[in-house]
């Protein structure tokens, strides 16, 4: 059994299913992200794992123990809240030491543990600082330290970087990953920021409408999304309608505008059969410019430094094709779609 095991967990509020029969397994020591747009149920799932909501159905087990009816204060989890929930009437040290009182440590031991945690999150010397005098980044560190100092089996993070500005967020991403490696605790992060999920995590679960759409390592998620929703949510993606002609060692598809193509078998999502209508998906950076290919007209170009981003209009298609690269000319170009990078997804 996995370290965190969520099986068939459902939760509805006022008749609307927010989390719908979710299964999830997380291994010990993993940095795992729940990624999805707001309202997809990811925070509710996290709150059920933390004990702040009770599942209507299904079980949640941590390290082999069923947690469904265990109240938050008896769970081996700690949480970093979205707004950090720093206790406003306590200073930094007392915020961090708050959860140690229950552990009945000796006074010097308690002090040593809290001080060590202050150092881990690089807040040395700020122990006496009042909660109201902290910057956003410092509040985030206090919230993290306060949760980690109890040495939970599982740390839950609810959009922990959402309230920070972009530069601080990027710095904290690196730091969060480093802290996780250092303490070796399993981290479960909830975020709507795909970049954050992909850069921080060992594995990512993409959620949509209360269900888990795909669980995979970041690279696989990016390169082999299993459905349109995941492909759409993560990065930029072009879609073309196609029909499967034949499935053998490679897959032959009729892709209309793009002609008849042969894709590697591994590029086809499971469950697709011959004669199915499918979507072919390709990332903007995999579409190439060439001498010959599908002719198109550059509708807009955005300069991004080492490359540019183009919208290319092609005949017979209303949506322009997103292309990332360097166009040889302005105006008319020819696009090629390397079959190795075309992914076949169910047309749903």
């Amino acid at each position, binding site marked *: 059994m996995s370290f965190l095991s969520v099986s068939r967990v459902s939760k509805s509020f006022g008749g609307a299913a927010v989390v719908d029969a979710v299964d999830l397994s997380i291994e010990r020591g993993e940095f795992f992200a729940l990624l999805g747009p707001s309202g997809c149920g990811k925070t509710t799932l996290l709150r059920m794992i933390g004990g*702040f909501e009770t599942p209507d159905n299904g079980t949640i087990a941590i390290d082999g123990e069923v947690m469904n009816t265990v109240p*938050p204060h008896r769970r081996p989890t700690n949480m970093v809240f979205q707004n950090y*929930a720093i*206790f*406003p009437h306590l200073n930094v040290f007392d915020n961090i030491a708050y959860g140690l009182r229950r552990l009945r440590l000796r006074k010097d031991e308690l002090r040593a543990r809290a001080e060590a945690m202050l150092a881990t999150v690089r807040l040395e010397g700020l122990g006496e600082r009042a909660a109201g005098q902290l910057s956003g980044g410092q509040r985030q560190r206090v919230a993290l330290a306060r949760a980690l100092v*109890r040495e939970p089996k599982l740390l839950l993070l609810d959009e922990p970087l959402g309230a920070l500005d972009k530069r601080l967020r990027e710095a904290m991403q690196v730091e969060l990953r480093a802290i996780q490696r250092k303490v070796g605790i399993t981290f479960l992060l909830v975020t709507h920021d795909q970049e954050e999920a992909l850069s921080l995590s060992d594995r990512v679960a993409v959620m949509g409408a209360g269900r888990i759409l795909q669980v995979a390592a970041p690279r696989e998620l990016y390169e082999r999304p299993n459905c349109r929703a995941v492909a759409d949510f993560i990065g930029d993606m072009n879609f073309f309608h196609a029909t499967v002609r034949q499935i053998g060692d490679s897959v032959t598809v009729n892709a209309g505008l793009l002609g008849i193509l042969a894709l590697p078998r591994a590029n086809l999502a499971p469950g697709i059969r011959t004669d199915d209508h499918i979507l072919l998906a390709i990332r903007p950076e995999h579409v190439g410019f060439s001498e010959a290919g599908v002719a198109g007209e550059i509708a807009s170009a955005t300069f991004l430094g080492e490359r540019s981003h183009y919208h290319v209009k092609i005949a017979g298609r209303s949506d322009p094709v997103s292309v990332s690269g360097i166009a040889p000319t302005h105006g008319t170009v020819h696009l090629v779609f390397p079959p190795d990078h075309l992914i076949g997804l169910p047309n749903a």
Partner: protein
Amino acid sequence: MKNRGLLLYALAYLAFLYMPVLVLPVFSFNNSEFIAFPLSGFTTRWYAGLAADSAMLHALGNSLKVGAATALASTLLGLLAAKAVTRNRLRGAGLALGFISLPLFIPDIVLGLSLLLLLGAVGLPLSLAAVVLGHLLVCVPFALTVLIARFEGFDPNLEEASADLGEDGWMTFWRITFPLMLPGIAASLLLTFITSFDEFLVAYFLSGTEATLPVYIWGQLRFPERLPVVLALGAIILTVSVALVICAELLRNRGVARPRVGA
């Protein structure tokens, strides 16, 4: 000159509001037993007379006891109810709040009379304890209003964070909720105390032989020669009441510093 007209109106209105109230302190320093203009000189003898009035001091003691008991009990009840309606998704919370607040709109004389009949019917004696029970009806809605506003002003995540960090409901209350609610609790104590302290009708019906201060004052009005002393007493009560209400308002508005979010 529309503005000037409005200004005059405002001034006249203020005079209308406060002139009667100011009559009290003015005549309490007037060196005459008759309450009439022209004033006949400054004296503090009515105030000095108060200190020697043992019946008055006894009534004051009664009022302080009733006020303190009412303030503590109604604030405690208000705290529990306010926590329940702000922290839980309760069905019928709005209706319950409406019913709790209803006594505010029942005329005091009806309330006092009903309580008198009820006490008689169940065979309880008229006493200061009965007055406290009556005052609770009037004071709990005040406590509730002040405390609900305070609960709404603080982040429920703080209580969740405390639970998350290993504290049960009881310890979370003492380590987080209570310290953060303290200004609201103090404001509620002051407001309910002063409401009870100044209340006349319910106390008049229920106090029996133990008069509270307003009941005592009412009794003294039968003796014209005591009137200046009553005015002095009234002036003191007025001053203290206003001071307490101002304190309560200051406390109520002293918010928990809302967290700044940003770098």
